[in-house]
């Protein structure tokens, strides 16, 4: 029988995601800023012009000048150097906390979305309860009870994020469940674990990725806010949030540079993450 119907189909060429991302100016800008702060966090002490811990009690509260680009704080420490190094704590706690929340949240969301039933209803109520409170409030509650440490912050923030992410993943899983490949796989005798992790998870993974990047921004937001409120991790390394906390009482006296520059640094990092998150969302949705 001749070739008959041997298809030479038009294979649609798929551009890999990362190339699409690089085409977007918002992604490039955001990623660049993020990269800058990561480099600072790692190599900061080597790059900084002055020792961020060195106190000069004769040159306290000096406004920005050629010698000290961002001025000095109330202990005479160079603000610029402190800003450069200050990313470290935030960039350790926030990503780890978000990762924890994402992993747990995805697993929970998969289970609730696929298995449904009574478990979904009960756990759903619990999730709703936690979500009724703003994250900051819950964290304050737990941190007041448990005290502040790196581990506590990571765990508490991670656990707060879990229901948030679980809710989104659950919706995505329920949408997938309407598609026919799910019963097709069940008809092969696949078990529940396989269904959730091999069939459904790869399809909701873009959603998970978007959630991760979006929540990362919020994690940084939260860690910085906590530090500002005085619940920052008290270690000797300069930390943007605690610097603001220490120095903002001086605003009334007119010493604005000690608070403004760390504040702008925080803003820039969060904006960067959100630009990246927005781009990732656009690319994966399209």
């Amino acid at each position, binding site marked *: 029988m001749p070739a008959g119907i041997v298809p030479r189909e038009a294979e649609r060429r798929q551009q890999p995601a990362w190339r699409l991302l690089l085409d977007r100016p*918002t992604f490039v800008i955001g990623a660049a800023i993020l990269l800058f702060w990561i480099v600072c966090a790692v190599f900061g002490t080597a790059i900084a012009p002055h020792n961020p811990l060195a106190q000069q009690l004769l040159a306290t509260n000096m406004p920005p000048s050629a010698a000290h680009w961002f001025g000095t704080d109330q202990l005479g420490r160079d603000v610029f150097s402190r800003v450069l190094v200050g990313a470290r704590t935030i960039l350790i706690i926030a990503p780890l906390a978000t990762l924890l929340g994402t992993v747990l949240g995805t697993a929970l969301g998969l289970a609730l979305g696929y298995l449904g039933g009574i478990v979904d209803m009960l756990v759903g*109520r*619990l999730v*709703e*309860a*936690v*979500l*009724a*409170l*703003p*994250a*900051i*409030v*819950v964290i*304050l*509650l*737990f*941190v*007041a*009870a*448990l005290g502040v440490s790196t581990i506590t912050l990571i765990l508490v923030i991670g656990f707060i994020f879990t229901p948030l992410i679980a809710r989104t993943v659950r919706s995505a899983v329920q949408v997938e469940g309407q598609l026919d490949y799910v019963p097709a796989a069940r008809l092969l005798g696949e078990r529940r674990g396989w269904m959730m992790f091999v069939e459904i998870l790869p399809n909701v993974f873009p959603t998970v990725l978007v959630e991760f990047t979006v929540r990362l*921004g919020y994690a940084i*937001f939260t860690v*910085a*806010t906590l530090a*500002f*409120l*005085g*619940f920052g991790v008290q270690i000797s390394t300069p930390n943007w949030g605690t610097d*603001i906390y220490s120095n*903002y009482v001086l*605003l*009334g006296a*007119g010493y*604005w540079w000690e*608070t*403004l520059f760390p*504040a*702008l640094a*925080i*803003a820039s990092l*969060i*904006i960067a*993450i*959100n*630009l990246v998150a*927005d781009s990732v969302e656009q690319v994966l949705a399209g």
Partner: protein
Amino acid sequence: MAIYLLRRLGLAVITLWLLSVIVFFAGQVLPGNPARSILGPLAAESAVKALDHQLGVDRPLITQYFSWIGGTLHGNLGESYQYQSPVEPLLQAALVNSAKLGALALIVIIPLGILGGVVAALNAGRPLDRIISLTGLSAATVPEFVSGIVVITIFSVELKILPASAAAPAGSSFLTQLRYLILPAIPLVFVLFGYIARIARAGTIEALESDYVRTATLKGLKRHVVIWRHVLRNSLLPTITVIATQTGYLIGGLIVVETLFNYRGIGNLIFHAANAKDFPMLEAGVLTIGVVYMVATLIADVTTTLLNPRLRTGVIR
């Protein structure tokens, strides 16, 4: 319809109950010995035991929980460790203050956000849309204390036109109070604008691309009629729910803003309570916030159901 309301109410009650358990757990179970933390590590053991007994924390957990819940339902929220006085009146006053600030923020943000979102959607893909979207995105990500500090620096320290504290002197007129509340409201507006604008935009774009808008346009209706009568009615429905959920972020923002601006609202109250490990105050405050949030979402759900014909009537043949 009535059945739906009852179910919704029932679920809310269950959620509130779970919330109270969580709060109680965090407040009473986790910290360990409150008397010890109040009196410090150097106090005598007998003094600690006495205070424990006075605070009632040596009773079994279940008893403590029920006594707390019972008291709460009767309006007795316990005594603050810090002030040694009932929690209730302090909480009430703080709630009123926060309500003023929150209301101001919402009155500004709702029309602004919706307008921004709709305008962005009508210009989708064009520069105006990018500007609005990016502005919203950036503003939403800046923590309240950052924008608060920037705003204080500019308007209060440098330009000296607005006060850096939100607490107007007692007995001030409405306008004076308003003047004091402007600066604190700004960080809140920043944070909320982005999200509301985004949802309004998404809803409007979806409506614009729908088949029924095509029908309306091809009937020969004028553009503004199409937008007003056909688009907005459908696109703004999801916005209602979003506004309710945003009260959560609003309250979170209140903690920072009130602390920064020295305003005796509920956020400030909770902050000081957390600092001082004043658990009765802390628990009462957190529970109140939970209640406020649930009421807001309940109102939003009911409103959405009333406004959406599909949910209101169900399918009949």
